[in-house]
């Protein structure tokens, strides 16, 4: 069988990842740390990034791919500039998180896990953020918004649209 040939460009992003890999080379079991770093640099984990990690860490590509697809946090598709992450933990669910997701679907015209055409927003859901006291809760990148209702959804989108 022909080996998978993937072209890996030589650029600043790969050099940064390469330097990180060097720094953890002697650490046991570094794969998940490296994947976190890579997703931080590239925003997602396309096949060529996984191939690069596989080569540098000398771990089979199938193993890297297996780990990437196992964990919810890792994504193989590009994300929007703002990732809207609606908490679907029990407390939020009881307080209407399902409706919050529907409001976003309605306003953004995308489904769960999808990105808007202008690459501004990605709509996702997550398991409990541990901010149940504020249910329903969502995060836009690192910012937390609590007690979200329809009005707040509109306000949030307006705010990030104006930031561009």
């Amino acid at each position, binding site marked *: 069988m022909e080996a998978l040939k993937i072209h890996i460009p030589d650029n600043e992003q790969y050099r940064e990842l390469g330097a990180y890999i060097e720094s953890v080379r002697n650490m046991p079991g570094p794969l*998940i740390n490296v994947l976190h770093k890579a997703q931080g640099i590239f925003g997602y984990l396309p096949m060529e990034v996984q191939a690069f990690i596989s080569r540098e860490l000398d771990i089979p590509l199938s193993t890297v791919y297996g780990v990437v697809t196992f*964990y919810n946090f890792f994504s193989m598709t590009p994300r929007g500039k703002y990732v809207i992450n609606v908490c679907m933990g029990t*407390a939020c669910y009881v307080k209407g998180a399902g409706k919050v997701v529907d409001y976003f679907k309605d306003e953004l015209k995308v489904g769960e896990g999808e990105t808007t055409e202008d690459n501004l927003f990605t709509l996702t859901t997550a398991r409990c953020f541990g901010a149940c*006291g504020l249910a329903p809760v969502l995060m836009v990148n690192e910012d*937390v918004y609590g007690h979200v209702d329809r009005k707040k959804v509109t306000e949030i989108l307006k705010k990030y649209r104006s930031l561009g």
Partner: protein
Amino acid sequence: MAHRMNVLVCSGASCISNNSLKVKEALLAEIERLDLKREIKVIETGCMGPCQLGPVLLVYPDETLYKKVQVADVREIVEQHFLKGRPVERLMYKSPLTDELVHKSRDVDYFKKQYKIVLANCGSIDPESLDEYIAVGGYEALGKALTEMNPDSVLDEIKISGLRGRGGGGFPTHLKWMFTKNEKSKEKYVICNADEGDPGAFMDRSVIEGDPHTLIEGMAIAGYVVGASKGYIYVRAEYPLAIERLEKAIAQAKETGFLGENIFQTDFSFDLEVRVGAGAFVCGEETALIHSIEGKRGTPRPRPPYPSASGVWGKPTVLNNVETYANVRHIILNGGAWMAKIGTETSKGTKVFALSGTIKNTGLAEVPMGTTIRELIYDIGGGAPEGHEIKAVQLGGPSGGCVTPEYFDTPIDYESLTALGAMMGSGGVIAMDETACMVNTAKFFLDFTCFESCGKCVPCRVGLKQMYGILDKITKGEGEEEDIEALETLGKTIKATALCGLGQTAPNPVLSTIKFFRHEYEEHIFEKKCRALVCKDLISYEINKDACKACTLCAQKCPVDAIKGERGVVHEIQQEKCISCGNCYDVCPFGAVMRLSGEN
């Protein structure tokens, strides 16, 4: 130099998202403006517990608790209270029972029935300051263990204390430690499970964010007992602030010599490393967590061998959760007998619960074991909001079950909750009122566990999917008579045959809702009725002709043009077109849209 006044600003995750950091900035600016810097100190603390009241400020020595403080309130607080000594009453807590102002934070109902051991420092010290931790007795327990005790005598104290795992299982901590200690191996490890995945539980997050050194100290003592020189803290990626504070605390401890080589000039050396999870609920299971630390897919494996014999990198490993380790320093300082006096016959000490759902006071509460469910949700939680009634509380997350009001006087301990079909779990308490549909709630949990099932064993991978399918059918009004029995048979089989804790407990929410709310299942199946008006396919919408003001707002918002009528002509919903989306119900300013179920 001592300050005349200390102002504690809660910077738990909840308060931060309600702007507490901006409030803190405003406080500092105002204090600077009035030149009070030498008299008043502002301290950022971890979660104080009453998240519903956030952002919360606590002013010492007066013990004044301010609630819902915003930037605009800051000037008044500083000028009136800090400068002139007149507390700002409009921002103080009022007892909902007597409507009177509460002047001392310790008299606030929410705190009165609590007993803080694990959360003792949360909300009272600056989590980023090692000095403050030391000032409240930090690392004294580690010093005492290393210089005045030997591993056996430390283990004895843990045994006497009766401490059991706070992550859910309730396994006696001293046994875990003893098994690992007795293994002959040069290399051993201590792991902390901070992959707090149960939806509705956030105590581990609060301990790490509010008092990270307590965890470090507890783990170092565990390392001393079992003979380990390295530890890992596995934290979920969803908790960036916890990770940041933990990394900072570890660096401080290393710098000061509480971690590293020859701690307290003894032969004991211990180092800690944070490993960040990547979003997989199953990694809360110990063997899956160990695989994840090793950089692999987080799938569980059959036990034995238990981690105490073969854990991370195949070496003997002791693994506990955050709250368990947070108890350790208190046991060493006060003696095991002290903790054994708190709690019930089988469950000693305290437990932290996270209150959420339809309850007045959401937040964290630490109570002695043996406190009743009623005390927890009414005396501390304040009960349901006005006009609502709690019909069940869900304990133990997706692995637990619900408990109904007739059992609310049950004292909380590991055994009594399991006997009710619920479980202690990690301590998530979610209150539900009449607006929650129990069939749909069960379906929600199954959706969660189906998604999070790692797929390794058949009962969990296939069985849960089958159960979900049946529940889905019932909520869509397509349920059949034999469905309830099929759910029970499947549930019991999965419990008996699944590989790990996830599968073995996943049917619990279904079995327990069938046990307590069988009538709701039957209504869905036989009457096509959802009494909570949640299940979309069983609801129809109608317009109350007497209340409709013919404003056309509902017609404008209807995505399928199912609403007839125009200005001045009362609206009507054409049932054959309606998709039950509920938009009209949400937008009607007059409450004229009615939701009906099972009334045909």
